[in-house]
């Protein structure tokens, strides 16, 4: 790939990231507005925070579903065919937990997009191996790992809450171990470590480039 094509690809990717970043900021602003409305009046009908999960109900309830209950009066449950459980919660504490987790995760996502954009700008300028890029890639790696921790804590908390609140035919919803493992998303953690390793490579590349530039 010649120099011009390589840099135009970086330019295109940078443009795509700009669009993604703008859309994500708009989406976050709308969600923040909805969150504020819901916190003021959880029963206002602006409950956009739902939890959807597929649970193998045949493991717990032989036959078909008769009745689902919630021990939290602010929680509404709707069981769909094929075992989908939709939960709308007006519990402020639960909503706050979900939103803190979501906005932390979204903040890290925005940070990653920004760092990636600046990295691509340096690639387009023909200077990928610089100290700033090694730092940016390291920031991206740690952000991914932090996002994994936040998302895992958030998902597991939601699962534990659902287990406590929802009951089917008088028996509490007991998440199978598979549900908990599905909340882990270990591949995100793996990607974070890979990105950290790549930042080490860029640090070495920067050092080699500086030595090369100072070789007369």
């Amino acid at each position, binding site marked *: 790939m010649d120099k011009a094509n390589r840099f135009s690809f970086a330019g295109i990717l940078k443009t795509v990231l700009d669009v993604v970043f703008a859309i994500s900021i708009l989406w976050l602003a709308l969600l923040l507005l909805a969150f504020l409305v819901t916190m003021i009046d959880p029963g206002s009908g602006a409950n956009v925070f739902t939890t959807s999960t597929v649970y193998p109900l045949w493991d717990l309830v032989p036959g078909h579903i008769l009745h689902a209950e919630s021990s939290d009066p602010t929680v509404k449950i709707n069981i769909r065919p094929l075992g989908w459980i939709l939960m709308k919660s007006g519990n402020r504490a639960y909503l706050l937990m979900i939103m803190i987790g979501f906005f932390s995760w979204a903040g890290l996502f925005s940070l990653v997009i920004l760092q990636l954009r600046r990295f691509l700008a340096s690639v387009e300028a023909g200077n990928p191996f610089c100290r700033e890029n090694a730092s940016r890639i390291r920031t991206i790696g740690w952000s991914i790992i932090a996002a994994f921790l936040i998302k895992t804590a958030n998902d597991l908390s939601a699962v534990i809450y659902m287990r406590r609140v929802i009951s089917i035919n008088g028996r509490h919803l007991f998440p199978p171990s598979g549900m908990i493992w599905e909340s882990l998303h270990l591949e995100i953690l793996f990607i974070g470590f890979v990105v950290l390793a790549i930042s080490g490579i860029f640090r070495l590349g920067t050092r080699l480039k*500086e*030595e090369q530039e*100072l*070789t*007369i």
Partner: protein
Amino acid sequence: MGITVHLDLLLVMRKMKLVDLAEKVGITIANLSILKQNKARAIRFSTLEALCRELACQPGDILKYEPEAKTESPGAVDDLPE
């Protein structure tokens, strides 16, 4: 100190300007300036050869080794008893 470059002294002795030397050697003034200020990390043999040719000197006339000042520290290798 380590390796020091005594290019400025040779330029004075040969009555040559940095600009002229850079043009004759085939490197940029910026790079030659980096070399003159002892900021270079390494020098290619081809560059050293060109400098010696244009300045009519030996590599030892351009490059000098000056030992770095030793710091007193217990347990240093040189302090071990024989």
